[in-house]
């Protein structure tokens, strides 16, 4: 990775900086720069950033698969870039076709009956799903206030349930899976929903899912599927057949749309028939071959974002599904194969796999034994950077100490996985001081995050004061 002492924008030499216009606004400290300087600046910054194209990026739970260049090309088209969301429907039939078809594809892949593409990310989909659950119980005159969530769940699950006005009950896991007794004890007539990721965040398939779904049905409660791990099951099973009522997907994971340094993504929500009427408006419908927006949905929860979601992201996912078709199943196969292979290699290299057994598309190591040597998961993560790898997700899920959560995805070759495993093995035998002081050859050395919190320097003005 390149190293530059790259100035901030406001530190770059200005050009033609005199004020030209007489306007109400007196002061506006936005520099006037030469385009040449601006482009150089951002190219330098990009060269100090690690992307999927740079190398192995095995962030667990994030599914950092390769982003086809084709997707970037198909969205560069005036016929979406310069299309307004409120244009006459007759002039946006192409967009409506894509929404309509993508919804159908997602239904077929997940086994659900209807989808809304409006949520902008996974957590946004969760919130939408929880609001649908709320609207459903209101419609049948039941007051249910509780949502049950396993302690292995992603933080957005409890946060979303809470935002929709539910109280969250967290249940402990047993052997890395849902503890059926704990679940049964937690269920009551107040239970609105149980939120679950399957395979769960340890990469373990919850094989008792049929019983879980049965329990929820008996209790009259909703089973919610966090689809972050959909890459593990394409064509093998689906949330619909498992008995889930509401699903969200992360198109920026399973369906290969790029993560953009944090977004934009897309978090479509799918439901079973009985919940369809609560989906956000508008729905895209088709009549005599023409598509139109249907806003006349009295039970709908209303809107959850400005218009119809992150449309160009949706289009990329649509292109990906067209590209792969039914062979999406092969993706899952290779993702699961890669994950089990890498897990075995790392286990043989001396790393601990809690709840050892077969995994789906990802697995979690515990580095807690290294504590005896004063080494933490973060030290190993930073050392990986020196060897050109992006580290895995660390300290998640919370139920594993010193967690190292690895998701290699289907795209990586055996060679890459071998190199990663060899490097991990090498790191295990490296000197403590080297690890604790890593990284050594990145654009910056270990970043002091504690000081960042203490000083809270959030703009270039703050920086001047400090």
């Amino acid at each position, binding site marked *: 990775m390149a190293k530059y002492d790259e100035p901030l924008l406001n530190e770059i030499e200005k050009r033609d900086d005199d004020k030209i216009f007489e306007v109400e606004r007196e002061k506006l400290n936005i520099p006037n720069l030469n385009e040449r300087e601006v482009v150089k600046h951002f190219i330098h910054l990009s060269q100090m950033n690690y992307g999927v194209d740079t190398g192995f990026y095995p962030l667990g739970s994030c599914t950092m698969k390769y982003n086809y260049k084709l997707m970037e090309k198909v969205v560069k088209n005036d016929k979406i870039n310069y299309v307004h969301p409120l244009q006459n429907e007759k002039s946006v039939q192409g967009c409506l076709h894509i929404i309509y078809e993508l919804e159908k594809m997602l239904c077929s892949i997940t086994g659900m009956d209807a989808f809304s593409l409006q949520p902008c990310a996974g957590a946004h989909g969760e919130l939408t799903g929880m609001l649908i659950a709320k609207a459903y119980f209101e419609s049948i005159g039941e007051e249910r206030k509780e949502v049950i969530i396993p302690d292995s769940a992603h933080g957005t699950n409890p946060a979303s349930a809470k935002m929709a006005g539910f109280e969250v009950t967290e249940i402990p896991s047993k052997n890395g899976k849902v503890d059926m007794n704990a679940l049964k004890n937690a269920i009551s007539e107040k239970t609105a929903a149980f939120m679950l990721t399957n395979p769960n965040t340890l990469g373990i398939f919850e094989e008792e899912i049929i019983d879980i779904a049965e329990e929820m049905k008996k209790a009259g409660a909703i089973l919610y599927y966090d689809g972050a791990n959909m890459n593990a099951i394409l064509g093998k099973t689906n949330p619909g057949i498992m008995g889930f009522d509401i699903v969200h997907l992360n198109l920026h994971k399973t369906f290969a749309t790029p993560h953009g340094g944090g977004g934009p993504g897309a978090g479509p929500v799918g439901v079973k028939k009985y919940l369809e009427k609560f989906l956000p408006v508008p729905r895209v419908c088709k009549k005599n071959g023409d598509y139109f927006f249907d806003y006349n949905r009295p039970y709908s929860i209303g809107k959850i974002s400005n218009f119809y979601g992150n449309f160009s992201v949706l289009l990329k996912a649509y292109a990906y599904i067209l590209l792969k078709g039914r062979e999406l199943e092969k993706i899952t196969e290779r993702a699961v194969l890669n994950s089990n292979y890498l897990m075995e290699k790392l286990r043989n290299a001396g790393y601990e796999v809690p709840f050892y057994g077969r995994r789906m598309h990802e697995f979690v190591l515990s580095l807690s034994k290294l504590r005896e040597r004063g080494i933490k998961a973060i030290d190993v993560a930073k050392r990986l950077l020196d060897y050109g790898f992006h580290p895995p997700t660390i300290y998640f899920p919370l139920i594993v100490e010193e967690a190292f959560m690895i998701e290699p995805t289907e795209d990586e070759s055996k060679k890459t996985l071998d190199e990663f495993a060899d490097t991990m093995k090498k790191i295990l035998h490296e000197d403590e001081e080297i690890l604790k002081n890593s990284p050594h050859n990145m654009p*910056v050395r270990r970043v002091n995050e504690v000081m960042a919190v203490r000083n809270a320097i959030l703009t270039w003005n703050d920086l001047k004061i400090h």
Partner: protein
Amino acid sequence: MDEILDYIGVKSIENLFSIIPEKIRIAGLNLPDGKNEREVEMKIKKILNMNKSFFEMPSFLPIIKPHYVPPAVDEIVGRQEFYTSYTPYQPEASQGILQAMFEYQSIICELTGMDASNVSMYDSSTALGEASLMACRIKKRNKILIPKNVFWHKKSVLYNYAKGANLKIVEVEYGEDGKIKTDINEKDVAGIYIENPNFFGIIDDRYDEIEEMKENMDAILIVGVDPLYLSIFNPPSYYGADIVIGEGYLGNYMNFGGPSLGIFACKKEFIRQMPGKIVGATTDINGKRAFCMTLQTREQHIRRGKATSNICSNQALCCIAFLAYVSIMGRNGLQRVAIENMKNAKYMADRLQKIGFRLPFNSKFFNEFVVVGNIDGKKLNEKLFEKNIQGGLPVNEYLKNGILFGVTEMHSKEIIDYAVEKIKDVMEEIQ
């Protein structure tokens, strides 16, 4: 592949899935075979050909509007190091995007006059939802005042965000000038939301009155802004804003409504209540300047159910586009475009007045404005569509025969003249 299977001691790929109970297994996907890249590209091109872009059919719709994006912006956001990366949890491998985010925050604070900005909400509607929740957390009250004239999509999103926390949303009337009434007397108000320019495009420069209203009610003032507008008019900090939100469309395309980004900035005293990702400056162990995400104890991955928000993925790349746009334009470039927008809108409004429309509010406007004529906006739009023009947004729910137009630097004099001619033709046809 066999080598890998051997290594893990599994006979076939199928065995890897034997853990899934038979009862819930499916026999593959019910999708067509995959296509090659050329086929996919051609198919999508063909589908999109059913659309009409601004260049084929001039449009005057408001809310989000067509703007020019300098090619260098596309080049910058097209760098794989930015667009394929994840949220920068490992700062040493992400200094580039972290510095860019820090610069984005700085630019947002320059524009809005706030002290701190996050790295985006999903859009301006969800930003309003989050800002309302934040105001209620700060004031420990649950009432939010909003103008009656807020785009109904935004209102609907707000109601959804308000639902869980049982917020009470009170709509405030506007006066004859189209501006929110400031002589309101509500009790227990947590936050007051105003927009500037407002939904009717009107510029509100009653700076003292607005601040007084906020102070009388001891409420959090949330101001919805247009970033381009801010380059030539006083920032909301000038009239007491505590939280500033808006649509960060600069450098981004319309894309049939998204992605864009929700601007979210606030005063420093409130940063611990702010939702979303925030980047801070610090140093590495050698004392070299460095950047990282900070104040993360507000967030869901640490605080779970008690987080300030559930947001995780955001619209980061749109922030980079916004930043690249502003960097390339500079202050002078921004002001030039803002002035052009305002001039073009004024020109169109003048032309429409000459053919019999009137401006219902006698107020200054930025790049959107409402006119009233003797034809229903929907009907006018249908007729215009036949002439290959997309008219403005009918706003009959506020004003009979009211139409809200949006005009930008993309609307040249020729385009405006042409459209006004056609509008005139329609008016004559229906006489």
